[in-house]
């Protein structure tokens, strides 16, 4: 228990501190790197609660894909982040006020209440028990059977995202030289080479 608590506080502290650094860092590349650190610590917290599938997915998807994409965007696009941030301080008090009110409301609502036993129960004992089946296997059991409907709609949503990305950004430019392998292979010496007899002393 002691060791687990120690690691919990370690991960939690580093997660919060690096999350703070994401918005506090001056250099946007540092921000993204701190974001990655936050993801790693969140994954550590998931591991501590026994959700190893979520932990791995968090790393694969968020660190492997999303954060790297962020890095690309930050480094490739010439966005002046210092200028974008300059207005942030003006709105900070209003934002903080709204945040504090919302947090206070949430604390008031959630403090005096307990979750429904059915939800709390199913959270406490994942079905089937962890010793029999790992997270990943248990998810695989239901994902393509009980939850096939949701899984398929998620596929449709991704299809729409793909169509959308293409239709909004793909431009067919004219006069672009593309490699046409058929044309390349079909070339013969007759079409490709011109034999010129050069008379001595005259040049072409």
């Amino acid at each position: 228990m002691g060791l687990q608590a120690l690691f919990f506080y370690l991960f939690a502290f580093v997660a919060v501190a690096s999350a703070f650094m994401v918005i506090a860092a001056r250099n946007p590349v540092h921000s993204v790197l701190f974001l990655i650190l936050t993801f790693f610590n969140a994954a550590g917290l998931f591991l501590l609660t026994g959700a190893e599938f979520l932990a791995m997915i968090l790393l694969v998807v968020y660190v492997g894909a999303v954060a790297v994409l962020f890095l690309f965007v930050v480094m490739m696009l010439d966005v002046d982040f210092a200028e974008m941030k300059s207005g942030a301080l003006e709105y900070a008090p209003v934002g903080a006020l709204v945040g504090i009110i919302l947090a206070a409301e949430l604390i008031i609502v959630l403090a005096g209440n307990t979750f429904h036993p059915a939800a709390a129960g199913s959270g406490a004992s994942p079905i089937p028990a962890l010793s029999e089946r790992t997270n990943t296997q248990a998810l695989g059991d239901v994902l393509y059977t009980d939850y096939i409907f949701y899984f398929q709609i998620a596929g449709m949503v991704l299809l729409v995202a793909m169509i959308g990305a293409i239709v909004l950004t793909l431009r067919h430019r004219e006069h672009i030289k593309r490699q046409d392998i058929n044309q390349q292979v079909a070339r013969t010496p007759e079409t490709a080479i011109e034999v010129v007899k050069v008379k001595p002393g005259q040049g072409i």
Partner: protein
Amino acid sequence: MTPEILTSSLQLSVPELMLAVGAMVLLMVGVFSGEKSVTMVNGLAVALLIMAGLVLVLVTGNGEAFNGAFLSDPFAKFMKVLALIGAITAMVMTVGHAKAERIDKFELPVLFVLATLGMMLMISANDMIALYMGLELQSLALYVVAAINRDSQRSTEAGLKYFVLGALSSGMLLYGASLVYGYTGHTGFDEIAAAISGGERSLGLIFGLVFLLAGVAFKISAVPFHMWTPDVYEGAPTPVTAFFAAAPKVAAMALFVRIVIVAFEPVTLDWQQIVVFISIGSMVLGAFAAIGQKNIKRLMAYSSIAHMGFALVGLAAGSQAGVRGVILYMLIYMVMTLGTFACILAMRRKEDGNVEQIDDLAGLSSTNPFMALMLTILMFSLAGIPPLAGFFGKYFVFVAAIEAKLYALAIIGVLASVIGAYYYLRIVKIMWFDQPSGSFVPVAGELKLVFGISGLFVLFYVIVSNPLGLAADVAAKTFF
């Protein structure tokens, strides 16, 4: 899931499967037949939607599918038919305009089909997860079509604005759904209702309900979540706006009805307050904010906000008569809106293309009397003047509200309707009594057909009101 359950589930969702598979086939057809295939793809997409509608009405049975996530009942069928009609009409109106405005991409009809699929899934959703997935499928397709004219700054701005605000509202909806799950232990609507009715209602559940309804209210553009509507309506290409104003509103309203009537039936008093508040807000804001508008698409945006408020009056009653009122109101609203947008699409000048200012309608009665007459009928109907359809829509919801003893709501509704009549009648005045400032190009046949049919529908609604009322009765009885 056993094979038998899977088979029966698939049978119940045949129209949705047709749309899903059809959209992919159309995408392939479009890709392989090149850039200029938009007319063919659009025609095939319309045929696909019509076939799905026929299968829905003639073949599909009633029942639950996919472990209760998907529900096929008379209410769902009625609303799905409405959504399909709205989508088909908008798509028919799209082609000519898309060609003229150079946004004739074959992806446009494909995205319309996918959005329609999302709407049908929303209408049939009987579970929080199914609700969210359907809603996202529909919304994501709509964000893209709002920005489809990517060379126009206004269109891209509309798409981006819609996307950012839509993502925010989805976040709120998900947060609410997770709280509801936390306090009831279930995601299915029936199970949620059972869990609530068992014990005392907790504050956390009400908190979740508020967030959930905020997310749905955004989708029907009810006050105070209406801010996006005028800008998106104005910025998006007009046929896309026509699509936005009709089918998605029907689907989101059906979703709204199902959530509060089925899942939160035991806490009726709590959601009733919320619905009354957003209903009054929408009616009043729609009535006042539309007065100063000069752009007819912005005016229609405020008009649609107000109409959502009127429809919610019926929902606030929470009775069978109220739900019947909502169903009929959405039907009539959709017909009127599509007809009006057909007229807006017909506002096209030879020299400066499509025009959108209300003043451009000046003297329409002398240049195009038929269109002026139909638009006049539609405007009178939107204002709610008897014996046109718009009057009956309002009548049903107000009667339901009075039966439920919501007198203040009904009175505010009638007053807002009177104020709203001003700007509808102003358009009529501009058409008939102002000097013409130039004429429009001859109206395309499909637009003439759409505003002709909708004009005649609202004019002779009295004749068809009986069978439609019976169908709405059957649909509303689903819940009671």
